[in-house]
C-alpha cells in the first residue's frame, strides 16, 4: 500500500546522497568555519549561561541552524528542479496519494537535516564536547525542527516557479529567521524590543529547545518550545497537504 511512498522516499534520499559533497559536506564545512571565526572573536567576551562557554553554547545552535537550512533546501530544491526540468510529471502521473507525496518529501528532507546535523556535531565536538544532558529533548527538537523546515521547503517548492523565487524565499525568510533565532547569542542579552520580537520567531523555540537538551538550561521552558514547534509543524503540514490535494501550481 505504501510502496509508492517508500519508493519516492528512497529516490529522494538517493538524490541528495549522490551529490553528498554538495548537500552534506559543504554545509558541515560552513558550520565549522562559523564556529572557528565566532568562537575566536567572541569566546572571551560572552558567557551566555553560567558555567557554559561560548563555544559550547554555539555548537548546538550551529548544528540546528545547519539542520534547519538543509531540511528546507532538500524538499524545496528537489521540487523546483523537477518542476523546471519537467520530470515532476513522472511523480504526478502515478497513483501516489497526496499524503504519500507529502510524507516522502518531508521525511527525506528530515533525513538530510539529521545527517548534516550529525556531521556538524562530529566535526565540532573536539573543540568543546557537548554536555548532552537530555538526549531525548535533543532528538525531539531535531526531528520536529527539521520537519517544520522540510514542510516549509515543500510549500516553497510548490509555490515557486523559478529558481530566483525560491532563492528569495530562502534569503528573505529562512536566513533571517534562523540567524535571528539565537544561534549566535542568548536572546536575554538583547534589548527588550528585540527580545519580544524573537519570541515571535518559531525558529527561536527550535534552537532553544534543542540547546536545552544539551545544557539543561534555556531561555524558555522546553515544554513551551515543544508546543510552539509542534503547532507550527501541524499548521504547515496541514497547509502543504491542502496545496497538494488541490494541485496548486502542480496540476493546472
Amino acid at each position: 500500500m505504501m510502496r509508492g511512498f517508500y519508493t519516492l522516499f528512497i529516490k529522494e534520499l538517493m538524490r541528495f546522497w549522490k551529490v553528498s559533497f554538495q548537500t552534506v559536506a559543504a554545509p558541515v564545512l560552513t558550520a565549522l568555519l562559523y564556529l572557528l571565526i565566532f568562537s575566536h572573536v567572541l569566546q572571551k567576551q560572552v558567557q551566555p549561561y553560567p558555567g557554559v562557554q561560548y563555544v559550547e553554547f554555539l555548537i548546538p545552535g550551529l548544528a540546528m541552524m545547519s539542520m534547519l537550512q538543509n531540511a528546507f533546501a532538500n524538499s524545496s530544491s528537489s521540487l523546483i528542479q523537477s518542476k523546471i526540468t519537467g520530470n515532476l510529471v513522472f511523480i504526478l502521473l502515478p497513483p501516489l496519494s497526496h499524503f504519500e507525496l507529502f510524507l516522502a518529501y518531508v521525511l527525506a528532507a528530515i533525513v538530510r537535516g539529521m545527517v548534516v546535523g550529525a556531521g556538524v556535531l562530529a566535526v565540532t565536538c573536539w573543540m568543546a564536547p557537548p554536555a548532552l544532558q537530555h538526549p531525548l529533548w535533543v532528538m525531539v527538537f531535531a526531528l520536529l525542527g527539521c520537519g517544520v523546515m522540510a514542510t516549509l521547503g515543500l510549500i516553497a517548492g510548490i509555490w515557486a516557479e523559478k529558481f530566483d523565487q525560491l532563492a528569495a524565499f530562502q534569503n528573505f525568510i529562512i536566513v533571517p529567521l534562523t540567524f535571528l533565532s539565537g544561534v549566535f547569542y542568548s536572546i536575554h542579552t538583547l534589548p527588550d524590543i528585540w527580545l519580544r520580537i524573537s519570541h515571535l520567531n518559531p525558529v527561536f523555540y527550535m534552537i532553544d529547545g534543542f540547546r536545552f537538551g544539551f545544557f539543561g538550561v534555556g531561555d524558555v521552558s522546553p515544554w513551551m518550545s515543544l508546543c510552539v514547534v509542534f503547532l507550527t509543524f501541524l499548521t504547515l503540514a496541514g497547509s502543504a497537504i491542502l496545496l497538494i490535494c488541490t494541485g496548486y501550481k502542480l496540476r493546472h
Partner: protein
Amino acid sequence: MPDAISFRSIRKQFGSLRALDGVEFTIQEGEFFALLGPNGAGKTTLISILGGLTKPDSGKAEVMGFDVQTHYREARRNVGIVPQELVFDPFFTVRETLKFQSGYFGLRNNQNWIDEILENLGLEDKADTNMRALSGGMKRRVMVAQALVHRPPVIVLDEPTAGVDVELRQTLWDFIKRLNEKGHTIVLTTHYLEEAEVLCNRIAMLRQGKVIALDTKDNLLSEHQSVRSLNIRLSGGNLPRGLHNKLISKQHDQYQIRLSSPEELEWVLAEIRVAGLQILDMGLDKPDLEQVFVATMRRHDAHA
C-alpha cells in the same frame, strides 16, 4: 464492458484561450486510436486531463470506467502516458529510473518485465547508463519504457516519434503493435500522418478544441475516395489554359492535377490531346490520410 477511455463535454480555458470546447468521444478497449490535429488543437491538453496533470473546467474523463478525478488512483493505474516533452531525471541510470517508476505504481518485483521492456525497446546496453549520457532518441525510449512499467491496459503516446530516427520508429511501433495485439488499447498523437494511417483503426481530428471528425480510418478514407489527383509529364508545350484551375502543383514538365471525380480524367486527357501535347508519363494518386486531414481542416475553416 466499460470504455477504455471516455471524454464527456470536456471544457478547458487557459486565460482567453479556449483549449477544449466540449470534447466528447469514447475509445473502446483494444482499439488503436489516433488523435490528430494541428499544433494548438488541444491534443496534449486532452491527454493531460486523462493523466490528471490538468483539471478540466467542466466535463468528465474516465479511464477503464474510473473517473480521473474522483478515482484518480485507479484511473492512473490503468493508463501509461508518454509525455510529449523530452524530460528525464539526471540523477539516475536507466534501470534506476524504471525501478523507481515501478515503485511509484506500487510494484515490488518488476525486474523481469523491466528487462523485457528494455530488450523490446533496444535499451539493454544502456540499462546502467546515466540518463544524462543518453542521446535524445534513447531518452525518448526510456520515456516510453517508463509509461509501460505497470503494464497499463491503456497506453497513450503523445508524439512519441517527434524528431527520432527511423530505427527507433520501427522498434517502437513493432513493440506497440504487439502490445495492441495482446489487448492493450493504444492512443497516439502524431504529426506523421502516414504512421497513423498504417497503425490506427479509428481517428479523431481536433481543431481549436473541438472534435471535427471522428470515424474509422476506412470510412474517412473512402469518404474522400472521389478526390484523386493525376500526375502527368508533358512535352510539346505548357498545360492548356482550361486546366489551370485544376492545377495543384508544377515542377518542370511535371504537373499534378486535381480530379473531382474519376470521370474527369477523360476530359483532362482530351484537353491535352487537343492542345497537341505529348504524354511522357502519368499516374493516379489515391487519397491518403494526409489529404483527408487537409481537406477536413479546410472544410472546418470554411464553416467556421
